[in-house]
């Protein structure tokens, strides 16, 4: 098994990455503007729904049921999809999934693919693997195209290029599309993308997609999108390959009535996104005549094992938690070092990697709880963040100094007498640092705390001392 989540294992830790990014005022401006716009739109269309809470509740329960019987539903999906003319493949990890894709492309004697936005393929690093195998991949979602042509990384789950402004995009398109002239209005840039991709849509023989939902009962797959590039990729090529994380299963077609109300309103603030495509296996005379589904584990079964954080897999990738997160809004997505950024990324990325990498991410949060409030499937992200911080410490992966400090604290807090001694010591020790009744600078490690806030000194009398004295007086 070699689970990897993009290049997250090699990424710098969150604080060091964030420090550089927050210095980039253009980036912060772009991120703040984009998230503000989506938040406003989302709030408006969510307010229209009098049954929003009931939908969230249903979604959570459907996902819970799915995960509890995931083996059953995966087999049911495989059977239904196969019956309808699809072929189901199973991939234990990212590399295995990439190999299956490459082998399929070779078996059809092709060397180009068109792709509709799939985060799962970013997770497996598919584009890089295709490149090494001599296959050219064309990203067709406008934002993904900007990221691909700009040799950049996605910074948001739904709008991966929100960190770029139109002038930057114009520069990228001029250079990479070999254009002589190009305006800088969003309309001009969108038209350039349409022209660039049109010929590829009509010509390329293999399409690659992810899935928003895969229905166990019917074997249907559903992709939700806005631009029509998704429809192009899944209905024009002769061959379609869909890379599907095992948590994307929903038990019944009826269950879609819940998610198709929650997802567009949460993700882009639309009542319904312009296009939803549903297909089941292959259809004679319409669209790809060969259809492959790759069911991907890549660490997901591991996540199932921890009951306290299992619901991380409920995520439907709407990105609402990113847009409201005070941390994400300052740093943007790149600081998280993973294709999954923001609050959901902070809990998903380390868990997929068995808590062996990206261990600073559970700390990349103020635990304000805004993410939980907007989550359409009610993932309790703050609670999971705390739980994962606990796991980081249990793993012994907390910094040595922190572990020493915690051990020392535990020693003194264990007994009343020891605590009293410590308090007495502190009262003497702090004399050097108290100025005008507050401590505003401490030496060494403790200085980290006082660098950004003042500290009240240890009072002259502790509660225990006061209590004992009061008791004596009464007698």
């Amino acid at each position: 098994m070699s689970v990897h989540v993009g290049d997250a294992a090699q990424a710098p830790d969150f604080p060091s990455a964030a420090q550089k990014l927050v210095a980039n005022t253009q980036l912060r401006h772009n991120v703040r503007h984009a998230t503000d716009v989506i938040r406003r739109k989302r709030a408006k269309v969510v307010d229209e729904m009098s049954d929003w809470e009931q939908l969230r509740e249903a979604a959570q329960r459907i996902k819970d049921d799915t995960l509890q019987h995931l083996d059953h539903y995966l087999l049911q999906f495989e059977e239904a999809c196969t019956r309808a003319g699809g072929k189901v493949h199973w991939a234990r990890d990212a590399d295995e999934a990439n190999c299956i894709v490459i082998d399929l492309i070779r078996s059809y004697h092709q060397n180009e693919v068109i792709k509709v936005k799939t985060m799962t393929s970013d997770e497996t690093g598919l584009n890089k693997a295709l490149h090494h195998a001599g296959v050219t991949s064309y990203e067709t979602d406008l934002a993904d195209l900007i990221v691909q042509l700009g040799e950049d990384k996605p910074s948001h789950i739904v709008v991966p290029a929100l960190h770029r402004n139109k002038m930057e995009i114009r520069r990228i398109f001029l250079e990479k599309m070999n254009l002589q002239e190009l305006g800088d209005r969003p309309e001009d840039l969108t038209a350039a993308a349409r022209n660039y991709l049109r010929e590829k849509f009509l010509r390329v023989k293999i399409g690659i997609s992810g899935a928003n939902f895969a229905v166990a009962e019917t074997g249907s797959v559903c992709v939700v999108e806005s631009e029509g590039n998704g429809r192009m990729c899944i209905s024009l090529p002769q061959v379609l390959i869909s890379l599907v994380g095992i948590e994307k299963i929903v038990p019944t077609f009826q269950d879609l009535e819940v998610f198709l109300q929650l997802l567009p309103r949460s993700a882009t603030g639309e009542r319904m996104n312009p296009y939803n495509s549903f297909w089941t296996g292959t259809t004679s005379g319409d669209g790809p005549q060969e259809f492959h589904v790759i069911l991907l584990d890549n660490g997901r079964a591991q996540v199932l094992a921890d009951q306290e954080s299992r619901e991380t897999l409920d995520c439907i990738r709407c990105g609402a938690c990113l847009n409201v997160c005070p941390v994400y809004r300052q740093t943007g997505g790149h600081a998280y070092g993973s294709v999954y950024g923001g609050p959901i990324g902070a809990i998903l990325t380390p868990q997929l990697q068995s808590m062996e990498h990206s261990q600073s991410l559970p700390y990349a949060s103020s635990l304000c709880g805004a993410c939980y409030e907007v989550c359409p499937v009610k993932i309790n992200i703050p609670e999971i963040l705390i739980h994962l911080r606990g796991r980081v410490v249990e793993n012994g992966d907390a910094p040595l100094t922190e572990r020493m400090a915690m051990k020392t604290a535990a020693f003194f807090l264990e007994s009343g007498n020891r605590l009293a001694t410590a308090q007495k010591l502190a009262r003497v020790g702090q004399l050097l640092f108290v100025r005008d009744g507050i401590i505003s600078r401490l030496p060494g490690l403790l200085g980290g705390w006082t660098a950004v806030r003042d500290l009240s000194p240890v009072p002259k009398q502790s509660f225990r001392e006061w209590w004992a004295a009061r008791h004596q007086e009464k007698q």
Partner: protein
Amino acid sequence: VDTAKDEMLGRIREALGRFAAPLRSSVPREYRVAGVLSFSERVELFIERLHDYDAIVHRAGAHEIAAAIAATLAARGKRGLLIPLGIRTEWLPPGFLFQRDAELSYDEIDRSEGVLTGCAAAIALTGTIVLRHSESEGRRALTLIPDYHLCVVYEQQIVETVPQAIEQMSGYTRSPITTVSGPSATSDIEMTRVKGVHGPRTLEVILVS
């Protein structure tokens, strides 16, 4: 033997432990399923939502469909459209060239002036048109590659809520299904909504009473 499959299922079962919970442990569905609007309110809401998403709506009586199509095409200076094989001939006005999709190539579809189809259902609350790609709606490429889509919707086809539409759709999941809510759009550049990316840039609806 598929070792990857066995290993994945094994790992999932191990992670879950032996569970006793029954399948479909009661999902509460207390959200809105049935509609609350009257027929005419439902139609009005559908029109309002279509407008919200930049679609253009014309209304016509049951016997005026061909005339409405003729007027629409004339206003746009179009000489003709592609049509799916099973479209009703009484919809087609004289004086225009309607080409049936008998295995047209993608390039031929791309060169067309647009496409005329019916639909399977519509959703008022979200301004959505449902295509099941039957004989009167054509294969998926036909309503995707052209830059102009003219769609005939009967008022009786409009349901109010998403669950009502999904219930209908669950009856024909073996066909591909596309739901269309306004023309294609993107907000990927500085969150400015741009109408028309790859799908038809213009969606026009003839709403038949």
